[in-house]
């Protein structure tokens, strides 16, 4: 089998015709992650992709293919991030008040993994189709 790619494969349902017929709404979510200590490390339980030094066309989650923001690409089941409500595809806008929309991949990693911070408060935007479906069914 082929080796895992750097990004998870494109999700077909995000590009389905349905997504184009219905309005997408971006909702802001505040997520508070309590890191889990594993030996010497503090684990958050999710993966990030993106950054101003990265190629934005490889990002399957962004609507705008020039978007160089930081995105959540995987969430570990049962990990601190999932427990806190973080979801795959979320775009991270801020971490503890620090802007994350114009940072390199490595800067983003550093902001999230500060050794003396056991809690990180994230501001994320999430593309939501469910709300639009509900609204169209009710009208």
């Amino acid at each position, binding site marked *: 089998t*082929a*080796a895992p*790619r*750097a*990004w998870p494969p494109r999700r077909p349902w995000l590009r389905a015709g349905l997504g184009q017929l219905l309005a997408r709404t971006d909702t802001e979510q505040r997520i508070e992650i309590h890191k889990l200590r594993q030996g010497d490390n503090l*684990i*958050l*339980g*999710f*993966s*990030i*992709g993106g*950054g101003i*030094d*990265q*190629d934005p*066309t*490889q*990002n399957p989650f962004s609507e705008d293919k020039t978007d160089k923001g930081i995105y959540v*690409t*995987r969430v570990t089941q049962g990990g601190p991030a999932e427990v806190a409500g973080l979801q795959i595809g979320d775009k991270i806008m801020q971490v503890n008040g620090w802007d994350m929309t114009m940072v390199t*991949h490595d800067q983003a*990693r550093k902001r*999230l*993994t500060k050794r003396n911070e056991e809690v990180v408060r994230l501001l994320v935007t999430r593309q939501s189709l469910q709300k639009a479906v509900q609204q169209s069914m009710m009208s």
Partner: protein
Amino acid sequence: MYRDEEEIEREKMLLSEANSSEYKLSVSPEMDIMEYCMKEWRGNTPAAKRIRKGYEAVAQKFASIRRIRGDNYCAFRATLFQALSQAAQLPRWLQSKDFTMLPENLLSKYDWIKQWQLRQKPGKRMGEIKDEIKEYLILLRKKWKNISEIKGPLEKQEACDKLFKNEEEEYSLYEALKFLMLNTAIELYNADKSGKRVPVFSWLLFARDTSSNPCQLMHNHLNHIGHSGGLEQVEMFLLAYALQYTIQVYRLYKYSTDEFITLYPNDPEEDWPVVTLITEDDRHYNIPVRMCQETML
């Protein structure tokens, strides 16, 4: 470093292969890294498995690979192409007012530079060494400036593709790089002689029988680059120092050793930009493109 017959033949084959299908392009269009790897390395020998694992590791950070024309300039080609593709400004040393006076200044101090091997231009009469090299340096600065001023990444990429199309212009840039390496070697040699601290690779560079001083380096190494030889590893350090860039190389045959990813220089300055190359064997270089890193937190 001095290639034997078999290697020269292999090089010729690669060159004619490149020439027949993409004769204009010195840097081929991009291809998915794992697709490329599976196509090139099908066997099950330990070497093949090692190289494939190496490509998998590269694919953790980069999506595509671009093949580089395989002549003895390929290290220059790969490094310069990567540097220009991401150039946002002129490097400090290119901004210096005395930059184009370098050939004249050095020639007046060191008579032996008169034996610098200029690249033969078919049909063109060779001028004075200092004038020819000055032309190369002016061209390097002009191209770097133009490309770094392009804002859009797509347009910047197109400009690089236009420059690297196997014409004399491209080769003049490599000759400029060669001369800059000589200049850096002279600086390091003099610094060492006068008791100043120099990087370790500088000792290695001049510890070779064939290059115990800059004059020998020129005669036995630099004059041959692009013709009968490419860049040895210690000369990759010299190139990195001359450009003030960190050259990061995935050396695939060294997978699972601590030399798998080698940095030239190996303790890089913070503010030197990084360019990344791939080599299967330390002879031929290709370039990875499209960074798409994913990090587990």
